[in-house]
């Protein structure tokens, strides 16, 4: 309960002002394509040089929480996921926006974010010592199996057919091998300077999601100018409130999955949203609605990616090990003031530690309030005529890809992948499994290489990867996940076969 004692510090005029600036600035930065939470926090670091340690961290913490949530805005309205965390949000969120329910989707996403986020920070407050052990429990073999578990999600993710999902996942895994191999430094498939650094995930995300829709908009030509004028439904906030809490299954699956996965160093943040989305789809009786603009998709994805924020800081705050790139940047923000995370932080600088954590808690709520306030206005983006929209999205896509590392190479990669994806989509492939392959490929590979090096030195690969309760549990979940997908597919086929037979009979008689 120690944290309660420092709640007052959050509300001193300067601190609260910084919290507001961090939250609003974070929402805007987060909504800008290409500016991932890591980049946004790194951009703010110089501003903290002149501030007190606690004040600097309030700014950074607020910016971190709200950039993650802000990423949903461009994901829903423009179908550009600002960071890997928002991939799953585009799947149903953008479909909702296209139906004129943009305001509803945004409100749901901000509310779900706040619920997930508050839960995550509470975990950070109460369970930090326990969680720290859990974060350390994942060694190379476990991370390898976790990545494989992620791959099993590919088949069932946003795809009409399992085979096409797996195929596009494989394309993603192949793309992940382009560039220098992370451990040995070997060069693979470097056919142009632009890919010598490998395929950067953020330009790839922007290209794969945004460019196909830009091309379709342009391909629609003038006809679409006098196409139906979309009315954006107004959606009262109170209704959004009751909707979020009436869809408890998606909300709780998202929150719990996000917090558990977010804790695992190096993996969590990127795939929490997608795994939560997939799980809530599998457990939902309205499975078929996912991908067509189903609110539960948005709720699960957004509650998961904000629930990850709190736990992702556990390894940093307790063990001084940054578990994610964003945590590494926050570490820099602490070190500049001579504060070392770890026991030193909580013992000698409790005011800094708890004010920081409290500000993330308040930040989640402020973020939700501002998000809800602008949701109605922002949703009007859907009314912009296609011709203008296509140009704006294209401009943002180029800007976002370039800004990641100031490199035209990334823009070429974005354009090439996007154009390729346009044709793949025409054949029923979808972008989400491809991106998941791109993210998971390097995790699986690097951990397998590391694990087998350790195994070769100490025991055998077999015993290193296949023994131990955590390994076996992860393998079991992966097998169950595949089994369940196959079972669903088979059952559906039997169903459709039966229905067809009935229909034929009807036609004959």
């Amino acid at each position, binding site marked *: 309960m120690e944290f309660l004692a420092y709640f007052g510090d959050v509300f001193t005029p300067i601190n609260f002002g910084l919290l507001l600036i961090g939250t609003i600035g974070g929402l805007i930065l987060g909504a800008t394509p290409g500016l991932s939470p*890591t980049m946004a926090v790194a951009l703010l670091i110089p501003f903290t040089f002149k501030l007190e340690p606690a004040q600097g961290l309030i700014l950074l913490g607020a910016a971190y929480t709200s950039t993650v949530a802000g990423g949903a805005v461009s994901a829903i309205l423009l179908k550009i996921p600002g960071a890997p965390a928002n991939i799953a949000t585009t799947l149903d969120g953008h479909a909702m926006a296209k139906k004129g329910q943009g305001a509803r989707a945004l409100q749901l996403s901000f509310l779900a974010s706040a619920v997930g986020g508050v839960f995550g920070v509470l975990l950070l407050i109460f369970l930090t010592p326990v969680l720290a052990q859990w974060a350390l429990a994942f060694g*190379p073999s476990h991370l390898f199996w976790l990545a494989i578990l992620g791959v099993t999600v590919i088949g069932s993710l946003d795809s009409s057919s399992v085979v096409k999902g797996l195929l596009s996942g494989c394309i993603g895994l192949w793309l992940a091998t382009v560039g220098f191999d992370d451990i040995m430094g070997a060069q693979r498939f470097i056919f142009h300077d632009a890919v010598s650094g490998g395929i950067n995930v953020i330009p790839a995300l922007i290209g794969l999601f945004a460019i196909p829709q830009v091309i379709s908009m342009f391909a629609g030509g003038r006809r679409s100018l006098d196409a139906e004028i979309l009315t954006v439904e107004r959606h009262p906030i109170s209704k959004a409130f009751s909707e979020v809490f009436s869809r408890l299954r998606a909300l709780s699956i998202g929150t719990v999955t996000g917090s558990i996965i977010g804790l695992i160093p190096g993996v969590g943040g990127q795939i929490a949203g997608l795994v939560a989305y997939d799980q809530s789809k599998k457990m939902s009786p309205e499975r078929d609605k996912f991908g067509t603009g189903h609110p539960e998709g948005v709720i699960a994805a957004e509650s998961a990616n904000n629930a990850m924020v709190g736990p992702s800081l556990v390894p940093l705050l307790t063990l*001084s090990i940054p578990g994610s790139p964003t945590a590494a940047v926050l570490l820099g923000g602490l070190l500049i003031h001579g504060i070392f995370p770890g026991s030193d932080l909580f013992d000698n600088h409790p005011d800094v530690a708890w004010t920081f954590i409290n500000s993330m808690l308040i930040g989640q709520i402020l973020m939700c309030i501002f998000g809800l306030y602008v949701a109605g206005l922002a949703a009007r983006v859907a009314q912009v005529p296609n011709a203008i929209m296509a140009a704006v999205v294209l401009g943002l896509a180029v800007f976002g890809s370039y800004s990641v590392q100031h490199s035209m190479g990334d823009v070429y990669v974005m354009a090439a992948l996007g154009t390729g994806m346009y044709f793949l989509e025409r054949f029923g492939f979808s972008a989400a499994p491809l991106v998941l392959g791109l993210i998971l490929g390097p995790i699986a590979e690097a951990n397998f290489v590391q694990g087998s090096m350790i195994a070769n030195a100490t025991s055998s690969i077999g015993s290193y990867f296949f023994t131990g309760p955590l390994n076996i549990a992860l393998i079991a979940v992966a097998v169950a996940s595949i089994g369940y997908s196959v079972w669903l597919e088979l059952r559906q086929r039997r169903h459709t076969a039966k229905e067809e037979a009935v229909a034929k009979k009807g036609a004959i008689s």
Partner: protein
Amino acid sequence: MKKLTASAAIALAALAGSALADENYPERPIMLMVSYGAGGATDFQARIVTMTAGNEDALGMPIAIINKPGAGGRVGWNWFAGQAESDGYTLGAYNIPHFIAQSIEGGVSYSADSFEPIANWGADPAVFVVAADSEFNSMNDVVDYAAANPGKLTFSGAGLFVGHHIAALQLEKAAGVKLAYIPNNQGGAGAMKAVIAGEVLGGVNNLSDAFRAREAGNVKILGVFDLERNDFLPDVPTLKEQGFDIDNSSVNFRGVMVPKGTPQPIIDKLAEVVPTMFANGRVASKMKAGGSPMHIMTRDEVIEMWKAREVALKELLAGL
């Protein structure tokens, strides 16, 4: 022919323009490329040492950090050698011995001749760490274990052909044992996590990170891969003191460089101003607070150091 005249005209204009520009340099903000990710030790230190660049007594223009991470720095340095503009507005951070070792190993498009050093800001020695509850209490314990179990002593480091790997090779050579070096794909932080979590028996890591981890009570530091003890860790003996013939080849020197072809007047101006910028009192206090050892060297000293490193590394890596 038309093309030729045109390009000649452009070249002439560029020459005239650059001669003028050299005197007023810098006229706009400068970019510093860091070939490691945001939040890493190099990035963190680069942000601190360049924070006073905008002051009147320094360059008078701010320096912005651009991260180009990947493959142990190869991605950033390849870009810096091949694609960065040599107009003085694109600086790069170097890590010795990393890029020299990588260029000796091959497969990259740079070598020490591709770059012009400006000044050095820091020297971060490698140290040997073990988990706080480890049975090892000195480097001799570690080497004894390795001698009894050849090839079974697993220890982590930030990657292949970086300072940590060089230190590992030196230890193997000096102690005459076979070790199992496990390179980590997440840099020093990932390698440190492997030690604390008990995935490996020990690790080579940056002094600054190891110092923090020890403060947090997570690790023991058994030795410093340097010629002298370090001010941050006066109680930790060097490897040499413990009877291993190991010099400072693995010490991670960090500094600023420009691509080959940058106009000489600009190099001279930078070489004059940048070391004084590093020596700023505010920079020194922030670096000390962050546990990052400073070591300021001028351009001439760095040129000597690069040459000496290249010779030593060629000898060490020849046996691989």
